[in-house]
C-alpha cells in the first residue's frame, strides 16, 4: 500500500504559485506516495504571529490543527511556514496545555519538502533532469530554525545535467521577512540587491530555494537589475525531466 502524505501548500503557493504545489505533488507521486490535499487548509498564521498579533495567530493555528490533526505526514513547500508550525505553535499555546500537546504531536509530523524527501522518504535521487547552471539560496528559517543545509544540496547533486554553484556569502538573508518588506520596503530592497549581486557573481541562470517568498523577493531584485535569471522552487527543478 502506498504511503500517504498530505500537502500543506501554504497560502502563498495556493494563491500565487500553484505550479510549485503541483510540482511537489508530482515528485511525491512519482516516488510512490498517495498524495492528499485537505481542502479546508488556509494559512499557518505566521503573518499575524510575526507582526505581534498573537490572538489572531492562535486562531489561525487552531484551524490548522483541526485540519491536519488526523494526517500522518504533512509536507510543506516552505521552510518558513514549516518552522512556524514546528517551533512557534507550542509557544502560542503555552497557556493551554491540551492544545499545546496537540500542537507538539502535530509538529513532529510536519516536514519541509526537501528534508521530507531525504530524512523521511530516504530519497536523494528523484530521477530528475535539469540542464542548467543553478545557485541555491538558503531561506533563513529553513537554515537556522530547521537546520536544513545538506538536504536540498544532496537532492540537487543527483539531478542530471545540473551544475550547482554556491553563493558567496552563502547564508545571507534576502531581506523579505514578511511584513518587514512592507514596513521597511526600501531597506528590504537594499538587502535583496545585495543578494542579487551575489547571484550574478556565480554566473548561474537559475536561483533555487525552498521558500516561495524568498524567490519572489529575489525575482524582484533580479528583474529590476535587468537580468533574465529566473527563480524556481526546488520542487519545480525536481519535477522536471
Amino acid at each position: 500500500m502506498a504511503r500517504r502524505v498530505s500537502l500543506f501548500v501554504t497560502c502563498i503557493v495556493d494563491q500565487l504559485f500553484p505550479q510549485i504545489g503541483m510540482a511537489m505533488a508530482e515528485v511525491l507521486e512519482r516516488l510512490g506516495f498517495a498524495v492528499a490535499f485537505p481542502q479546508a487548509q488556509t494559512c499557518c498564521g505566521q503573518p499575524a504571529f510575526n507582526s505581534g498579533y498573537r490572538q489572531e495567530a492562535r486562531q489561525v493555528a487552531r484551524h490548522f490543527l483541526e485540519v491536519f490533526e488526523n494526517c500522518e505526514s504533512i509536507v510543506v513547500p516552505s521552510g518558513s511556514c514549516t518552522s512556524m508550525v514546528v517551533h512557534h505553535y507550542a509557544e502560542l499555546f503555552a497557556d493551554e496545555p491540551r492544545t499545546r500537546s496537540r500542537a507538539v504531536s502535530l509538529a513532529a509530523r510536519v516536514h519541509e519538502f526537501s528534508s521530507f524527501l531525504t530524512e523521511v522518504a530516504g530519497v536523494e535521487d528523484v530521477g530528475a533532469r535539469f540542464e542548467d547552471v543553478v545557485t541555491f539560496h538558503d531561506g533563513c528559517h529553513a537554515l537556522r530554525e530547521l537546520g536544513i543545509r545538506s538536504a536540498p544540496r544532496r537532492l540537487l547533486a543527483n539531478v542530471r545535467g545540473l551544475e550547482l554553484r554556491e553563493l558567496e556569502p552563502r547564508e545571507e538573508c534576502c531581506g523579505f521577512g514578511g511584513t518587514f518588506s512592507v514596513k521597511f520596503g526600501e531597506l528590504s530592497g537594499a538587502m535583496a540587491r545585495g543578494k542579487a549581486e551575489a547571484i550574478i557573481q556565480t554566473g548561474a541562470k537559475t536561483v533555487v530555494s525552498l521558500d516561495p517568498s524568498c524567490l519572489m523577493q529575489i525575482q524582484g531584485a533580479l528583474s529590476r537589475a535587468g537580468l533574465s535569471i529566473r527563480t524556481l522552487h526546488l520542487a519545480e527543478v525536481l519535477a522536471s525531466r
Partner: protein
Amino acid sequence: MSLEFDSKIHKTLADARLQQAIYTATGRFKDARLKVVAQDVLPEYQELRAQANALKKHTIDHLDHYLEQFQSQVEAHGGKVVFCQDAAAVADFVLTLAKERGARLIVKSKSMTTEEIDLNERLEHHGLEAVETDFGEYILQLARERPYHIVAPALHKTRYDVAEIFEQRLHIANETVIEKQAAIARAALREKFLAADIGISGANFLVADSGAVVIVENEGNARLATSAPRTHIAIAGIEKLIPRAQDLATFLKLLARSATGQPLSVYTSFLSGPRREGEIDGPDEFYVVLLDNGRTRLLENPARRQSLYCIRCGACLNACPVYRKIGGHSFPWVYSGPIGAILTPQFMGAAHEPGLPFASSLCGACAEVCPVKIDIPKVLLELRADAPHNRWESLAFRVFAWLMRHPRAYELAGRVAASLVSSEGVRWIRSAPGLLNFGPIRAWLAERDLPPPPAHTFRELWRRR
C-alpha cells in the same frame, strides 16, 4: 516607525561610501570570528556557548546573592561598592567625589555603560574634563559623535575622515597615515594620563567570589586609566556579574573570539581593590559603581531576562544584514544592532522608537553567533506582541484571522483580490496618484513584483485533476 528612524535609514542607504565602510568593517570581523570558532580550531565552541548561557542564566536568576558576595569581596580588599539607580545618581557620585578630591581631569577607558548614561556630558556640564582614551572613542569625542558600534566605535570613519577631524579639532593638517594618527593621539593622551586625578573604566566582568573587576582591551589605555590616577572608578551594569573566577575560562574564550576574532584580547586586567602595601602600581582609592538604570525591571519577565546575558561582544551587529545596511547611528540609542533592538525598548520604553522591534527580517543570524545564546528573534517577537497596535493594522489582522478560519470565504477573497491585482491592476496602482499608491504599497512594489495572479489557484487545479 518614527520619521526620524525612517530618514536615518534612508540617508545611510543612500551614502555609497558609508555603505562600503560598514560592509567592509563588519565583514572583516565576521570572517575573523568564523576562523577562530571553526570546528578544527575550537572544537568545544558549542559547549562553551551552552556553558556561558547556563552560567549567565544562573547568575541573573540569583543576582541578589552574587551582588552581595561581590560587594563584600570588594570591601574586603579595601574598595567600595556604590549602588546607583540611574544616570543622575552616577553623575552625583562622581561629581561629589571629584569635588572632595579637588579633581578636574578625568581619563576614561571605553565603556558602553557610561555612554548609556551620557556621563561625559553630565561631567562636562559641571566643569570637569573627561577624556576618552580608547583610540576610536577619542576620535569620536573629537567629532562629537556617539559610538557607531559596540566594539568598534569609530567603525564608520575612514582614515580620511579621521584626518579631517584632526585638522578641525587639533589643527594638524593632512595626516592620513593610520600609524601617525595613532601616534598623535598617543602623545596627546599620555599627558592626560599623567595629569588625570580620576580614572573611569567600565567592566567586562565582575567576579563575585574574588571581587575582581575584569577588563579586556587591545590598546593598554584601560591599564593606564585604571592605575595612573589616584582614584579609579569602575562603572558597570549589575548584569556584568559572574559567580567564580574559574568561569572566566569560559567567558574569556568566547568574548574576544566573538568580538574581533582574536583568541584573547591583548590585555586582560584583573583589578581588585586599591594599591596595597609594597605595591608600586595602582590607585589609592577603588570604587565600583553598580548601575541599575532599568535592569531590575527586566528581571521581572523570565522570558526576556535573557536580554541581560549580553557580554557586549558585538558579534550580532557584524552578522546582522540590517545593521550592515543601516549602520549604528540609525538606531535610536547607544546600543545598536540586534542587541540594541531588544535592549532599547526594554530600557527606554517602547515609545522611544516604536518601529525598532519590527526592523528585522527575523533571519536569526544574531542568535546563531551570540556567544551566550540569547534568542534575540524570540525576544523581538515578544516585544512586537507587546507593541501598541495601529488601529487599521489590527482590523486587517482580525479580518485575516477570520478569513483563514473560513476556507470558502478565504477562497472567494483570494479570487476577488486576484482579479483586482492583475498585472493590469498593479500597473494601475503604480500610476494612480491617490488612495492605493501610498507609502508601504508603493515602497513594496518599487522593489518587487507581485507575480501576475495565476488563472487558477492550487486548490482549483487540484480539484480538476
